[in-house]
């Protein structure tokens, strides 16, 4: 392949890879994005519930996501020239039992300590925010600055905008090996060819582990299946992002009118697959039961589509966003553990800054790759 050597090669064409590429290009760097599948945004970026949340997150990643919600999301439509369907109408994390409220209180306390506007609300207040809840709901945590967006148009919007800035995307280009030359990252070897660059960003979701392994870096992520469903268009009901204390399900009503919900059966780690993430026969029925317990009004809504996807679950369920000291020139941004969409644009921006200037607006130290230690 004839290719002038780009300033940066990004491995992975998902929300993290695309947004990083976009902001790098905006800074004037030349970028080549290699996507292993035939489609842009094929991993978790296209298969998630669309949450743009701060509440419920680990304190280590809160500053980054809060930064994104203040600095990126509000103007993303005009930035990308695509409707990302961003609604900042709050997040309700619902509880039905005293035990649930305890979980929620704990999460809330931690977030408040980080400066997030989130609080516990009672039965009456939660119904003022959302009148469709079942009687079983007794309280919730409420974060008014949370919201949701469309992961598909956001991811593809970054792609479109990056492409317009001259970023070169190649799909179906599976990276099989990274190679150092004279002590620094230099080669990205794919099934088809070899690319060279002095700077490489690994943002390949759950595939990152195998790729990093080829250059002697162990990234403790594994793939975990999640399932989602979409309903037919419903009359407009509510605009908040929803979740539950037990994480039975999560989701929202999209701008389009359909509801998008995700959830888990609890049996995911033990399920088999056939090489692609495939819906199980029990996934969607389980999510439906979860939803109906909280929203009986949706019981007649028709499901038009279900899908499954893999998330890159990190050992401590928090992303790794870092410069790899052992391999000069290599950067990693992965392991978002199923909550990478809302934080993705901020991760992209900060990574671009880190690569371009050596510094990022948000302190990424808590997200370092070498934070994993044996428990004793």
């Amino acid at each position: 392949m004839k290719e002038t050597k780009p300033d940066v090669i990004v491995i992975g064409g998902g929300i993290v890879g695309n947004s990083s590429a976009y902001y790098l290009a905006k800074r004037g760097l030349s970028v080549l994005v290699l996507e292993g599948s035939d489609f842009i945004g094929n991993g978790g970026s296209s298969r998630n519930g669309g949450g743009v949340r701060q509440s419920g997150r680990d304190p280590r990643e809160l500053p980054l996501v809060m930064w994104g919600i203040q600095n990126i999301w509000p103007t993303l439509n005009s930035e990308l020239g695509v409707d990302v369907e961003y609604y900042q109408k709050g997040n309700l994390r619902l509880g039905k039992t005293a035990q649930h409220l305890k979980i929620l209180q704990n999460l809330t306390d931690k977030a408040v300590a980080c400066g997030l506007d989130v609080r516990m609300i009672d039965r009456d207040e939660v119904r003022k925010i959302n009148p469709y809840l079942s009687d079983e709901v007794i309280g919730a945590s409420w974060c008014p600055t949370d919201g949701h967006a469309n992961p598909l148009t956001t991811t593809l919007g970054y792609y479109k905008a990056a492409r317009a800035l001259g970023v070169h995307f190649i799909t179906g280009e599976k990276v099989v090996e990274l190679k150092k030359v004279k002590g620094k990252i230099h080669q990205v070897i794919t099934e088809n060819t070899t690319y060279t660059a002095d700077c490489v960003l690994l943002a390949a979701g759950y595939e990152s582990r195998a790729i990093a392994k080829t250059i002697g870096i162990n990234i403790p992520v594994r793939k975990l299946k999640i399932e989602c469903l979409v309903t037919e268009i419903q009359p407009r009901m509510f605009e908040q992002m929803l979740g539950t204390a037990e994480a039975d399900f999560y989701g929202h009503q999209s701008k389009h009118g359909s509801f998008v919900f995700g959830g888990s059966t609890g049996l995911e780690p033990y399920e088999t697959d056939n090489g692609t993430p495939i819906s199980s026969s029990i996934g969607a029925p389980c999510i439906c039961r979860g939803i109906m317990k909280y929203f009986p009004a949706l019981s007649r809504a028709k499901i038009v589509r279900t899908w499954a996807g893999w998330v890159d679950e990190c050992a401590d369920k928090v992303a790794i966003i870092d410069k790899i000291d052992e391999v000069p020139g290599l950067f990693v941004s992965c392991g978002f553990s199923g909550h990478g969409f809302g934080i993705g644009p901020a991760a992209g921006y900060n990574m671009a800054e880190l690569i371009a200037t050596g510094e990022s607006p948000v302190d990424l130290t808590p997200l370092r790759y070498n934070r994993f230690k044996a428990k004793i």
Partner: protein
Amino acid sequence: MHSINDRNKEIGKFIPAADDDLIICRCEEITKGEIRKAVHDGMFTVTEMRRYLRCGMGLCQGQTCAKLTKNIIARELNVSPSTLEPATSRSPMRPIEMKILGKEEVNKNERD
């Protein structure tokens, strides 16, 4: 590598046409012009097109428009339609109410 994998493939500028207003996806009311334009935004595959515009993602899940969309993309890219992947299929095959899909199964024949 597939000819469409290189997303810098030169396909020229979007040129408006008389039939751009034609509905292609009957459920989501997506037009031929929107699809053609999206190709120039970089949506080179049926999968990306569906995610970008929602064509084929409505109530019928693309039963009528899947082939039509594919042909429009292929023509815009100047490749044969068989270069493009067919649309993905997902359950349920027909729209199904939440209360029906979510019904806990009581299979009386379990012990038969």
